[in-house]
């Protein structure tokens, strides 16, 4: 493949890492079709029973539905808010600009445990019951930077003179935003939405503090880790989710690169 240097060492290093990275995923898949509830060798036999039982397991499916709802809502909010910040940042001049930038990126830096307990305090201070809403609010905060960065990367590639031209031709600014800017950044917004969705869907550190009686899937999964006999069903669902999640990431990536 390569003639210069000794590529063999580096490429085998890469291969080993790839194997190690995919090993846990393979293990999970194996676990979901394993007839036994522990993953001991030799395997006791293969089965699709867990997938069948999953369809009848109400609490597991419910937690998955909760996660989908929280992820869909919070990612929509994060995309709209992140897009607003991106447009502001590239198309307006104002004094608090750098402050806004810091504010929009800071949720990436503040440790989740700190934000989690701080939000827990805020909600108890105002006697807000913990629920899927409180989880969704937190997820909106932490996915906003992703949405902002994805949208701003695309918007930066477009010449503002297009918008000036539209306005010279008599379009109002809101019309220009809707008819010129929005179509330009739409793929990035979809990509931002999908990214924010995955971030929320997988999020556990904040949800553990903020979920009330209705758990999201990671929180429910965590509560079930002690019961070995219930695990294969959870893992069966997780495998299906992983496939869904990967599909979304690949679509998001395609859209981000789209011309």
């Amino acid at each position: 493949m390569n003639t210069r240097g000794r590529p063999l060492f580096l490429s085998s290093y890469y291969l080993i890492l790839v194997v190690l990275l995919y090993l846990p995923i393979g293990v999970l898949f194996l676990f979901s079709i394993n007839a036994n509830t522990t993953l001991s060798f030799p395997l006791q036999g293969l089965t699709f029973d867990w997938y069948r039982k999953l369809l009848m397991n109400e609490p597991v499916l419910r937690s998955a539905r909760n996660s989908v709802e929280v992820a869909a809502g919070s990612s929509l909010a994060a995309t709209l808010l992140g897009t607003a910040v991106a447009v502001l940042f590239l198309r307006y001049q104002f004094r608090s600009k750098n402050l806004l930038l810091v504010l929009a990126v800071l949720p990436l830096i503040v440790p989740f445990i700190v934000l989690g307990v701080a939000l827990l305090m805020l909600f108890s201070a105002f006697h807000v019951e913990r629920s899927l809403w409180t989880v969704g609010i937190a997820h909106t905060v932490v996915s906003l930077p992703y949405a902002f960065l994805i949208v701003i990367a695309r918007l930066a590639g477009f010449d503002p003179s297009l918008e000036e031209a539209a306005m010279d031709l008599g379009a109002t600014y809101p019309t220009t935003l809707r008819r010129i800017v929005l179509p330009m950044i739409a793929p990035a917004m979809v990509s931002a939405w999908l990214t924010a969705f995955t971030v929320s869907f997988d999020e556990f550190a904040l949800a553990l503090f903020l979920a009330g009686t209705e758990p999201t899937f990671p929180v429910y999964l965590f509560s079930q880790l002690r019961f070995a006999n219930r695990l294969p069903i959870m893992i069966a669902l997780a495998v299906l989710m992983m496939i869904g999640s990967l599909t979304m990431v690949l679509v998001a990536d395609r859209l981000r690169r789209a011309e």
Partner: protein
Amino acid sequence: MNNRRAAFWLLYLPPVAWLGLFFLAPLLLMAAYSFRANMRGELLQWFTPTVAQYQSLWTAGGGSYIRLLGISAGMALAVAASATVLAYPLAYFLAFRAGRRAGLFLAVLLVPFWTSYLLRVMAWKFLLGSEGGINSLLIYLHLIAEPVTALLYNRTAVVITLIYVWVPFSALPILAALQRVDPALFEAAADLGAPPARQFLRIALPLSMPGVLAAFFMAFIPTVGEYVTPLLIGGSSGSMYGNIIQDFFTKSTDWPLGSALSMVMLVGTLALVAVALRFIDVPRLIE
């Protein structure tokens, strides 16, 4: 231009209100609460500020909390340093040896990052546990008689898991830095008789240092604040500073001291980021 003004406020107010209400306000509330003497009364009420919580940080839990902060920082140092060192050859491979398919090779590395973190860590647990895959395989092959228990529930296991999680991610900034190196420099060095090892040490390594630093801080900063991985892998003897904070808000309910502990983490993290930004030109790196 009046509607441009109106559009400005329409774009400006929602994100600022959201982040103000659900990001700044809770952190400020936490900061204020860390100056309270105790939990008595409502969360929102006037109180006489005291630094008692910060004074007791050093002695609380027999001094074990502050010691744990030191241990967590040490673990983060080990994780970040190892992940960066292990990521370097990977980035080097992708930058100079992978050829045209480098993009595909990179994507293959990053895809698992988007699958459930909880589950990937749990899968390791299945492999490493005393009834897990590795032990039962070794027993089955008669290589060992008793399961090896040292693989789980201690700090080493946490560190190893975190290194594993960070390596592919740490390769990104190093790759970005290496891709910026002009290949003509290597040709020039070769023409002047420098052997490959010397070319690497004198050209690639120094020029990729900004990426190396970025990779280090990128892993170090979140690792200090970890609490999920120790919860899953570490058990009680593998806990980190973040787990203490978690306990203060769930098991024991001493929120003022808990707030002081998380303020220490918050201020420490922000200080680290400030230091990192002095060394790293972020816009250049992600360009």
